[in-house]
């Protein structure tokens, strides 16, 4: 019963958030200068044609009307069609306005569904790498607060967070890919193309994990249940592994929920540098081409993902620590 209540409440709140986000993005895109119709029909089209197409697409209606029409499509699973991309493949933005060969435009939902798995693969691998870096450093640092492992965690965290991701990407591509020839870097033709981008992303995430882990492990080790456990005759190893770490993982999970948007920003840049065909590259291209429906679609999908991840995080956190009440 608790679970049902919780889910209903959180999903309702989430729906409000997604609605707000989509309205915000929708309005912003229509308020800022730059006419997308001009991009669709090309620079040579007469003004009358621009106006005519804009009327046909409903782009001259009041914003609330447009938003209502758009949202009624979205709830039926129709996010509209891309302004620019044809269903068959490559973008043809700015093609001639009387080009009859231009085929039907791609569905926004299809575009997102095609690229999302790549991004998911990248994100998961990056998470694994980040944990591999952060777990030993963070836990060891937390076990010895004030001593050198703690300082080491602080320094390494400060240094890693200071590496700009795009610069690291370029340097790694130059050294690992061009000079050493160990890993492929640009594009996507197999799993090995994910590794280098994932490393760059992991370096970006790891400092946050290290900092959270150090603080939460140190805090838990100071609690009385830890000192009592030693009196109960439980080995130090088991106290750390089973008791302290279990409770320290709650802040780590929360971090995942809060820092989701940061992860996404990193994905965007990393995919752009490595020309990795995921959601991030799609977003950048959509923005540069003023593909409004696509930008809106991506904003809705990512904010929905944010809401879902936070719900799942809170659920897992309550199973780890039943005292937590959401």
């Amino acid at each position, binding site marked *: 019963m608790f679970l049902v209540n919780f889910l209903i409440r959180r999903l309702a*709140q989430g729906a*409000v*958030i*997604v609605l*707000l*986000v989509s309205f*915000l*993005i929708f309005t*912003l*895109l229509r308020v*800022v*200068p*730059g006419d997308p119709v001009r991009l669709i029909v090309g620079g040579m089209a007469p003004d009358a044609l621009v106006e005519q197409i804009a009327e046909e697409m409903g782009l001259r209606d009041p914003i609330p009307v447009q938003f209502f029409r758009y949202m009624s499509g979205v709830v039926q699973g129709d996010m509209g069609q891309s302004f620019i991309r044809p269903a068959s493949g490559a973008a043809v933005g700015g093609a001639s306005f009387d080009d009859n060969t231009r085929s039907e435009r791609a569905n926004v939902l299809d575009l997102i569904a095609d690229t999302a798995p790549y991004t998911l693969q990248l994100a998961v691998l990056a998470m694994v790498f980040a944990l591999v870096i952060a777990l030993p450093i963070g836990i060891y640092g937390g076990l010895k607060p004030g001593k050198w492992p703690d*300082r080491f965690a*602080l*320094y390494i*965290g*400060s*240094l890693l*967070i*200071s*590496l*700009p*991701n*795009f*610069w*690291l990407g*370029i*340097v790694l*591509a*130059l050294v690992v890919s*061009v000079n050493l020839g160990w890993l492929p870097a640009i594009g996507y033709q197999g799993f090995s193309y994910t590794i280098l981008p994932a490393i760059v992303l992991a370096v970006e995430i790891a400092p946050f994990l290290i900092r959270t882990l150090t*603080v939460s492990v140190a805090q838990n080790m100071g609690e009385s249940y830890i000192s009592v456990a030693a009196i109960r005759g439980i080995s130090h190893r088991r106290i750390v592994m089973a008791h302290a770490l279990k409770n320290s993982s709650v802040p780590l999970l929360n971090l995942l929920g809060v820092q*989701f*948007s*940061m992860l*996404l*920003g990193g994905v*965007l*840049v990393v995919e*752009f540098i490595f020309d990795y065909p995921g959601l991030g590259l799609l*977003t*950048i291209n959509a*923005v*540069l081409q*003023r593909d409004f429906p696509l*930008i809106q679609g*991506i*904003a809705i999908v*990512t*904010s929905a993902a*944010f*809401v879902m991840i936070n719900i799942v995080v809170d659920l897992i956190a309550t199973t780890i620590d039943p005292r937590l009440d959401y």
Partner: protein
Amino acid sequence: MPNTMEVIGPDAKEARARTIAQRIALGAWRSIEFRIGLFVFTTMVLLSIFWPMVSAIDPMKINIGAKLTPPVLFGENWTWTHPLGTDQLGRDMLMRCFVGLRYSLFIGLATVMIMLAVGCLVGLWAGYRGGLTDTILMRITDAQLSIPMIILAIAILGVSRPTIPAIILVLGLSGWPVYARVMRSVVMAERKREFVRGATILGASDLRIMFLLLLPLCLPPIAFVAVLDVARMIIFESVLGFLGLGVQPPTPTFGNIIADGRKYLVNAWWIATVPGIFLFLTLASLNLMGAALERSRNRVYGGKA
């Protein structure tokens, strides 16, 4: 804070005489990483302010004859005139880095100011008022928090023209929600305390309580840790520049220098890598200071200093 008065040890008197802000700053100053950070950061700032004034080299002057000169001690025909080499148009890299640093620092600082101002005002208002005001403001905050900042920034800057005020405004307005949340939780805890009730009984207006009593108490711990966000914003600004959505060329910024240098990576590695090292040093110094301040704050609030 009155309830942490019973500090044990000889420092008790000393600790009582100082405000929390002073104690945090002093605690950070005692750590070696803060001093290193401060030293590097001050050097960088002074150099970026005065070097372009002193030196006669123009960062935008094109000198094709001297193009792609490698940095000192690397490769052939390097010169002391261009210690970090030149780019594809023969412009001096050292000077371009310093000018880029100026813009980065300016944009980073201005952005964090806006974030702090907006976030703290929203948080203060929501936390003090509570009730419906709180619910509405916090739902807006949540909504904003769930749009990835960078997507919002590139969406706006991509479709409008990226000028420096626009960049500052967009980054600042997309980064405030975290501050609003922290400020709200602190204010909610403080507003139930006796001194606030006392002030209310004495007839102080809401504005007076908020700005003269609560704000000076809650702001410093948040503002100190904002140093970390200056570093984050500098990275954001250079990412935008890298994507071509930041400060536009020919004005040099780290982002657009590196984006340019990417095309010459194999022949002239220094164009893309040297500004990155500059950026890294600046960010590392900021992050070291921020981390030291954050630790010191946690110690002060944990009652250990």
